[in-house]
C-alpha cells in the first residue's frame, strides 16, 4: 500500500457537515455516498443547534485525495448543507465514540471483565447476577481494543455511536 504514490493512496478522513435539520437531509447525505460509490466507515448525526435548527453529521470515510475532494465538493453541493469541514486536513482534532457492551459471565471471567473495565475506565451502567452492561467513551482504537478483550469474557452484544469529532484549538467549524 505504501508503495503507491500519494495520489493513489486511500486514507481515512473525518468530515464534519453542518446541515439544516430538516426531513430527509440524512437520506440525501447517505444517498450521495451510496449513489457515487463512496465508503462510509462511520456516521453520526444529531441536532446541535435547536434554535437555528442545525444538525451536525460526522462521517468517517476513506479514499484517495481526489475522491476525498470529490466527496467534500459533492456534500457542499447539497442544498441544505451549510458547511463541510475536513477535520483530518484542517489539523488536530478530537474524535470520540461511545460504546455499550453487554457481557454475560459468572465466576472468574465476570471478575476479569470488571478489572479490564476498570483499566479502560468503562462504567457499569447495568448489572444482574449474570451480566454487565459497560459504557465506554474514547477513540475508536480504544473501543476496538476493549471489545477484543471482552470477547472471550462473555461479550454478547455491542452498540456503538460512531464517531463524533471536533477540531482542537479556539476556532469553531
Amino acid at each position, binding site marked *: 500500500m505504501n508503495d503507491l504514490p500519494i495520489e493513489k493512496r486511500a486514507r481515512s478522513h473525518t468530515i464534519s457537515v453542518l446541515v*439544516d435539520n430538516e426531513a*430527509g437531509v440524512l437520506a440525501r447525505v447517505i*444517498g450521495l455516498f451510496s449513489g457515487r460509490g463512496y465508503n462510509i466507515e462511520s456516521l453520526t448525526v444529531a441536532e446541535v443547534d435547536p434554535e437555528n435548527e442545525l444538525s451536525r453529521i460526522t462521517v468517517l470515510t476513506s479514499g484517495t485525495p481526489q475522491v476525498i*475532494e*470529490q466527496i467534500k*465538493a459533492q456534500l*457542499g*453541493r447539497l*442544498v441544505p448543507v*451549510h458547511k463541510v469541514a475536513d477535520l483530518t486536513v484542517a489539523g488536530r482534532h478530537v474524535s470520540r465514540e461511545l460504546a455499550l457492551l453487554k457481557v454475560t459471565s459468572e465466576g472468574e471471567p465476570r471478575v476479569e471483565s470488571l478489572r479490564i473495565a476498570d483499566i479502560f475506565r468503562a462504567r457499569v451502567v447495568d448489572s444482574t447476577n449474570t451480566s454487565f452492561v459497560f459504557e465506554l467513551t474514547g477513540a475508536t482504537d480504544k473501543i476496538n481494543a476493549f471489545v477484543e478483550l471482552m470477547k472471550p469474557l462473555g461479550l454478547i452484544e455491542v452498540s456503538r455511536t460512531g464517531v463524533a469529532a471536533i477540531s482542537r484549538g479556539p476556532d469553531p467549524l
Partner: protein
Amino acid sequence: MSEETLSGAEIIIRALVDQGVDVVFGYPGGAVLPIYDALFQQNSVRHILVRHEQGAVHAAEGYARSTGKVGVVLVTSGPGATNAVTGLTDALMDSVPVVCLTGQVATHMIGNDAFQEADTIGITRPCTKHNYLVKDVNDLARVMHEAFYVSRTGRPGPVVVDLPKDVQLATGNYIGREDVKHRTYAPQNVGDSGLIEEAAELIANAKRPVFYTGGGVINSGDRATEALRSFVRATGYPITSTLMGLGAYPASDKQFLGMLGMHGMYEANLAMAHCDVMIAIGSRFDDRVTGRLDAFSPGSKKIHVDIDPSSINKNVIVDIGIVGDCGLVTEALMAAWKKQKGKPDKDAHGKWWADIEKWRARDCLAYENPGDVIKPQYALERLRELTCGKDLYVTTEVGQHQMWAAQFLPFEDPKHWMTSGGLGTMGYGLPAAIGVQMAHPDALVIDVAGEASILMNIQELSTAVQHRLPVKILILNNQYMGMVRQWQELLHDARYSESYMDALPDFVKLAEAFGATGLRAERPDQVDDVIKAMIETDGVVVAEIAVDPKENCYPMIPSGAAHTEMILGSDSTSAKVSDSGLALV
C-alpha cells in the same frame, strides 16, 4: 412583508405568476385536481396538455434551454411522478432549470400505500438538484420561490415540489418572491482573483492553446456567450465545443474547430491531444469528450472554469480550477490577460495553426455518396442548405442521427440546439421541440430524429397538433437502432442482436392519423422536395427520409481509446478495442 390568505392551489398559481411563468407543461390527475381547478379560473398561465409525463418534462426542458428561463411541469401523484423521472434525470445531467410540481396523496395518508401514492421525494432525490415535500400550506409560497431560486441559480437543475392534496385545499398565507431568502444556498459566482491572474499568465504564454467550452457557457447566459466570443477573438486561439455547448461560439468562425469527443472533429480532438494550454470553460470533462483518461491531453496545463466545485478535478486533474460563473470569470480572465506584459509567441501560434489546418485538411466528415441511396449526411447537408437564413431551432433524439446533426448543422447562436447529452434519452427530441415552439411560435423548429427514437414519445404528436405547435420532424429512417448497430458491427463482429427495427409503422399514415402531414423521400432526388415541403407546409409535419441502413457515424474514438486513435470513415471498418474498452459504454 405582504401577506394574503389564499388556498394552496391559488398560492401555487400566484407563485408561478410571480416567477414570470407563462406556460406549464402537464397532465392532470386525482392528486392535482385543485391546482387544475385554479388553473382553469385564470388567464396568466397557459397549460400545455402532453400525452405522457416524460414528454412534459422534456417539453419544459426545450422551453428552458431555448429561452434561458425555468421550465415548469405539473403532474399528478404516483405514476404521474414516476413517469417524470426520466425527464428529471435528463434535466439533472444536462443542467436544465426545471421546476416540477407533483401531486401527492393527502398528508394523513402518506405512507399508507394509498391509491396513486409513491414516495416521490425518495424516488426523485437522486435525480433532482433538490426536492421538497410541502406539509404545511404556510410553507408553500416560500418553498415555491425557493424551488425557482435553486433551480435557476448556480449550476441549474430540476427541482421537485411534492404537493399533498390537502395542502392544495387548505388556506394559508402568500408571500412574494422578494420576501424569500434561502438559508443556505448561495452559489459562488465570482472567481478567485489570484487564480484568474495565474490562468491569464498561462493563457498569454501558451504556445499551443485551445479553448474547450461547454453547455455551462450557454447556461450562464448571453453575457457569458459575449464574453467568450470576445475573449476567443482577442486571443486568436482555436476553440472547440462539447455537444452541449454548440452555438456559444459561431460555427462559421474560422477559429472554431467544431465539436470534440467520441464523434467529434479530427482537428478538434487532435488539438486537444497536442495542446500545451487547455482553457476549459463550462465543460465537465465528460467521458464522451476525454476518451481514455490516462491518454487525455497528456502534455497540457489545464485551466477549468465551472460554477460547480464538484466538476473540478472529478475526471481529470487540472492545474488551475476556478469556481465561478462562466460569464463573470471569462470577463475577468480577459481583463487579466490584456494586462499581461509578455508578447504572444506569434511564431508558435503560427505553427500551431498550421498543424490544425493540416488536420482540418483531412476533411473528417467526408463520406462516400454514390447517389443510388440517400446518405443521412447528405440529407442533413440539404437540410442545412435549405434552412439557411431561417430562424432555426434544432432538437434531436439520441443516436447516429444526433451525432450527424451535431456534425453537419451549423449553430451560430446559443440556445438554438437542444439535445440530450448527458443522459442520452431517446424520445427527447419531439417533446423538446414542442417546448421550443411554445417559446418561439414563429420560429422553424425541427426535431432531427431516428425511426427508433421517435417511437419512444410518438404520442406527443397529438400534443403538437392540439396546441397548433407546428414542429417539423425529420426522421432519418435507417431501419436500425443505428448507433447500436454500429457498435455491434465494430465491436461484436456484426452480430446485430435486436437492433433491427422490424414492423415499423408507415410514418406518413401515422402522421395523418394524428392530424399532421406526412412526407417521404426514398431516393436522393426527392430529398430537396421533401425538405422544402416540410418547411413550407403549415402545421405539424413528419418527413421520413429513407437512408442507407449500413451507414456508420465517423469520425469515432472507440471506447477506451485515446484522441489520437480516432477512426475515420475511410479507415477499416473494424475498431481495435481493448478488453477494458469493451466494458465501457
